[in-house]
């Protein structure tokens, strides 16, 4: 079973994503910010992390850095899902090791298919 960690501080968005992935039989973990995500990551190893950037406390960049530097998470794919859509942002995100960089607003269907593709 695929495990997905959704990290975003907007509850409405999270709700939609959660529903969509649960429908795909994913085990869904939710974090409202980076620190919560790190907490979860200590105990679980998801296949994929859907990561917002602009979050309180610990932001997306710090989170991906942690993931990339954590041995146990080396197989975990990280996908940015953010409203930051400038070329420089995308570049930065990919440089930091993101497997994919997706922007808001998004189509739920699309996100799901992209993630499935990645995990295929």
């Amino acid at each position, binding site marked *: 079973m695929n495990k997905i960690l959704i990290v975003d501080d907007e509850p409405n968005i999270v709700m939609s994503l959660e*529903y969509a992935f649960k429908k795909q039989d994913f085990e869904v973990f939710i974090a409202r910010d980076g620190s919560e995500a790190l907490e979860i990551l200590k105990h679980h190893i998801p296949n994929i992390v859907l990561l917002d950037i602009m979050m309180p406390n610990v932001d997306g960049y710090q989170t991906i850095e942690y993931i990339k530097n954590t041995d146990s998470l080396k197989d975990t794919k990280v996908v940015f899902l953010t409203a930051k859509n400038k070329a420089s942002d995308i570049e930065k995100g990919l440089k930091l090791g993101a497997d994919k960089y997706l922007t808001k607003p998004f189509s*739920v269907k699309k996100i799901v298919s992209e993630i499935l593709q990645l995990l295929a």
Partner: protein
Amino acid sequence: MNNFSLIIIIIIYLAVLFYIAFFAEKKRQSKWVNNPYIYTLSLAVYCSAWTYYGSIGIVANSGIDFLPIYLGPVIAAPMWIIVLRKIIRISKQHKISSIADFISLRYGNNRFLGALVTIICLFGTLPYISLQLKAVSETFEIMSDETSYVSTSIIDDSTFYVALLLAIFATFFGTQNTDASEKHKGIIASVAFESVLKLLFFLVIGIYVTYFLFNGTEDIYNQISVVDNFKELTTLSGVEDGFNWFFLIALSFISVFLLPRQFQVSVLENNREKHLKKAIWLFPLYLFLFNIFVIFIAWAGKITFGDTQNAEYYTLLLPLKNGNAFLATLVFLGGFSAVISMVVVSTLALSTMVSNNLIIPYGFLDKFIRNQPERNSKYIKNIRRISIFTIIISAYFFYVSFSRELSLYAIGLISFVIIAQLAPSFFIGLFWNRGSSKAAIIGMIVGFFISLYTLVLPFTWQAYTGTDHFIQQGLFDIAALKPYALFGVDFLSPPAHAFFWSITFNVMSYLIFSLVAKGNYRERNYAEMFVDSNSFTSLQDNAFVWKGEAYVSDIKSVLVRFLGDKRATRALHLFFTKYKLPSDTQLADARLINFSEKLLTGSIGSASAKILISSVVKEEQISLVEVLKILEESKENIVSNRVLLEKSNELSKLSSKLKDANQELIAKDQQKDEFLDTVAHELKTPITGIRAATELLMDEEDDMPHEIKKKFLKNILQDSERLGRLIHNILDFEKLETGRLHLDIQYNDIQKTIQKVLDSISHLAAKKEVIIINRNLHSFKTNYDEDRILQVFTNLISNAIKFCEPKTGRIEIDYKLGNEVVEISVSDNGKGIPEEDHKYIFDKFYQSKHQNTIKPQGSGLGLAITKQIVEKHHGKIWAKKNVKNGAILVFTIPFK
């Protein structure tokens, strides 16, 4: 005596003069050649055939009217020590070569003025030379056996040959060097010799006539007093005569300065200023001696001949009558000397002017530039020679055409009047620096034409038309334009009359145009240098260095100027010791020159050092003035550099200000961009939520459980509201930022406003079960925009609710009156605001400098707008520091 032997005598005499001149040139430095006596005697070139013969004619015919011509110089002589000295100094400074040069330079090196002066001098001197030729011719006739020989052709006219001889003599000695400012020691020496001779012979004839032909002065006096019009001849008859005398004295006063030959000998050929001291009394003495016997000779002649002979030649006729051919020959030679010196010096001066101020500037300049220097000097010499020849030959023709009718005296005065036209520009220009070139030119032209009209035109017209209609009736028969009685002034003799009118109009034009139009910068510079010549040089008597020699003292003065007294003295001392020379060595040799050049190179560079030292050696008195010029220029450069520096400083200040402003603009732009970015970002969030939820609702319509559907719909609603609020806030904020928002200030009650807030927000608080307490229930009325302040309250309280814990949350609203403000506070017991965020919470979204991806809680536009509103009310808003368990936000509204 026949023609032939006379000519031989003349040739011998010329040879003697030639030899003297040659000798003097060779022994340039000898005391015999450089002394004040030679100088003064050279000044006596003033006494030409006019003095020699003409004055006697005047005495015989119109009494003591000859005196004014000599009173002028006598009056002028004491003034030489000031005026002439100044002129000499200036001429030395600027290497002036002629009076045309002098005047042209004074008015800004004005080429046209130089040419104009040259032309006037030509017109003025030509008649004078012709009168000399006339005198030679007539005395030649008297001396030779053939009387009243009227030559019909030039070949027969001995005068022509005399003229040629003079021309050759003048040419040879006048054009040795192309540098016209070099002294013509030879010519001056021979002129001095001639002056001695003419005085000597005149005195001899005077003594002869008075004491040998008669029994002394008393005898003559007694004999003459019985002649009819004696009384008339010896007194001034009335005011008219007084005027005539006045103007004639003025005329001769001017002439002793400005006649080209006088300018040449008194200024240009001057060696030492101190010679002036002797000249001041020696020259009047000479004139006095010359004129002692004039009256007696004239009277003697009158007594002897009555009115049968030309009185002008009594000096020849009397001895001849008494069979004394030898004495007559001496007199003739004396007269001839007078002629030669006048002609040679005049043509010398004139040819220099013609070549320097007329031909070279206007004609040959182009050729001049292209040629080699040797060819140049050849060109100049040839030009000068041709000029001398042409002038003398023209004078000859003038003599042939006009001089027969006029007396020597009359011709001389014509010459004086024409030359006098230079006087206003010359003298006034010497002391008044406002005198401008335009004024000088106009004055001269006006004066010249008036003098032509009143003096030259009448007799030439008469000579051509044979009638004196013009003289009697005036131009076009206008009485006021009678040439001898302009505007009715008919009591003056023609020369005085001409002088009066021409000078009056000349001076008037000069003054008017000088006051009306200032000269240009160059002119004014030169004017200053002339008028204020003393500050431009410190000349001592022996500061002049003449050809081919350098005096140690001169070199030293140059050194002192740059190295200072001590250093210069020390350096020279070293030099003398090194080369074992006595320390009072007068003359400098090549070693000293080299040594000095090297010394100066350190201070002023090698090129300038060379120029300075070589100029001292070559007698160019440029050193000080040129140096001053250089200093002036470099001072100007420094000043303009300073000005440039100041300007460039200003510019760089300006440009840095511009840079700053630009930076500000860029920053603002950046801020704007960032703001827009943030706005877009913030808008995207609710939109994303709406979109996602909607999509799911649509796709999962059948599969989605009802509860979840409701949830999603609620989300959509929430997000829509959020979006709406956000958009509203953004617009508000934008209005506030750009100042387009206008407050609706009314007189409101704080209490009422608080109540309104509580009413509207109560349901929100109730939802979270948070308590809001209103502490201060008093009314307070002041001026503010209620809607906006409501907005402020709403924002602060809703923030407080957000950060409070549910159920336990407690919010307090309070206000108190402070110093001219009402202070309102909203406090809560919620999370509080971290110390490091205090700065940022009122910023829109994020502070641009700290591009934090970490959002401080509660930021957005709400507080930013709140702050704007408060500040638009001229109030302040802040978060209290060091608050435990919560946050207190305070804002003030001022009241009067």
